[in-house]
């Protein structure tokens, strides 16, 4: 019975920790990532995303997409091809005010987050 308990506990923990690579702070509109374990370059990229993206939408939208692999609005897969497409979309959005280097950094971060979420 103890074995069963331990097994269930492990399964339960693995279910909750499916995105253990990403530390998420807060909920809803206040949802953020904890970048303390990010490599230095990704920390810098995260600062760009944290400042730029939230001008038009919450970080929750991005984090949910990374965590689930599904873009929450379109319902389409959110993978490495999608991160590039979203980056281009934001670059071309007249009101995004994002430069090409900023978009490139954001796409790199999203790809890094996807890798972390898959671990």
């Amino acid at each position, binding site marked *: *019975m*103890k074995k*069963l*308990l331990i097994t*269930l*506990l492990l*399964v*339960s923990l693995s*279910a*909750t920790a499916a995105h253990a690579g990403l530390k998420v702070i807060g909920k809803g509109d206040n949802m953020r990532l904890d970048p303390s374990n990010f490599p230095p370059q990704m920390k810098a990229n995260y600062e760009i995303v944290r400042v730029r993206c939230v*001008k*038009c*939408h919450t970080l929750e939208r991005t984090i*949910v*997409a990374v*965590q*689930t*692999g*599904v873009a*929450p*609005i*379109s*319902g*389409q*897969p959110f993978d490495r*091809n*999608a991160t*590039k*497409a*979203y*980056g*281009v*979309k934001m*670059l*071309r959005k*007249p*009101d*995004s*005010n994002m430069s*090409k280097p900023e*978009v*490139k950094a954001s*796409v790199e971060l999203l790809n890094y987050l996807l890798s972390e979420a898959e671990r």
Partner: protein
Amino acid sequence: MSSRKSSLVLALPLLALTLLQLSLPKGAHAIPAFSRQFKTECSTCHTIYPELNEFGDAFLKNGYVYPGKPGEAVQPADKKEGKIEGLWLSGLPELLPVSFTGTLDVAYNNDAFDGNKVDLSTRSLRLQAGGAFRDVAGFFLTYNLYSQGTQTSATASSSPASNANTPPSNSPDIYEMYAIWRHAFGTPINFRIGRMEPKLSLWKKSNRVILTPSYASTAYTVGSSFSQGSTPFSLDAPEDALEVNAVLGNRVFLAGGVVDRNGQKNKDGYGHISVKLGGTDFLGHEPEIDLESDSVWDYLSLTLGGFGYAGSNGKFNDRGVAQFKNEFYRAGAEADLLYKRFHLKGSGAFGRDDNPTFSSTAPTPIDSKAYAVEGEYMFGAPVNLITLFRYEYQKDLNGRTRRYIPAVSYAPLQNTKVSLEYIFTDAPSGIQRLTLASLAISF
């Protein structure tokens, strides 16, 4: 035994917790129809409502289905996931796809015939519904619940009298109501049937920052509503039509249709072609952009369009049969250029009417033309302020008319818009100056 019991007591909640976590949906999925249905903001599809951005145009062309990812069609089973099965099987949207737009207008007309320079009497309430049934069929409805005054009509801005304190009676009507059979038989072809604006111009009549319709390409009239016996026909008026359209190669859009006009057996026919260079394609796919180097096409998109319309109309007799027929045609070309925050729209159209006044004795053919240039600049993130200037020219039965419209539109919230426009009209009847302020709220 008691140890086993206590273990079981612990095991059951853990098992339930585990199953619950494994059975929860992994994320939100798009649901049918527009902002409320997709849980996304107005700026996904609009600059300032109701003007569409590139993605909004793709959404429109896609029959009100959220444009997908290139080359990866979502399987029906995936579409069903996360939705209420009964509603999905019935083809019903999970939310009633209905919205309203209310407008309050204030006009200042120094030349109002009754001396009442400031007119607060115009307002309207419009119901809109739209969406798709299981991505197979789309639909759209615009119903004018209430309108008073005619400031947003085609003739209002050039007609001081109609903007004075003489609001017509409330006349509820269906402005548009059509259904779309999307991707018929698995092809890119869509069938659209119902009451609709024929697809001619690159922009729907409502696809403007300000609602004063542009003469060119489609709103110009050959007749005048003030001329006895003539009809102010315009191409962008809703018609009872059957249309076939398709996006080909992601960047070419073709449309053609027939219009059933009351009181006559002859049908009108029309066709449209548009090609998009650069930018988001007609299916909503982002362009391939090299993030390592710069190109002018990173931000530039150019859409070119052309159209033709041929038909006839007439004056109804007491049995509702058209007589003293007027055979006419229109042809036009347009260009839409977007570069970062700058948006330029250019259009021109010409036509011929062989009996525009429905004369029974001496038909007098007339050639007409109209062209317009409109430049916009967007401010804010997301866009909440647009300044624009439009110049337009029309030559028709009444002579030459030039119109200059500087305007500004501000959206403190994405569903609330305040616009101010000054319309200077140099017409054969004289100079007209009209200042129009409008508050529009959509919910």
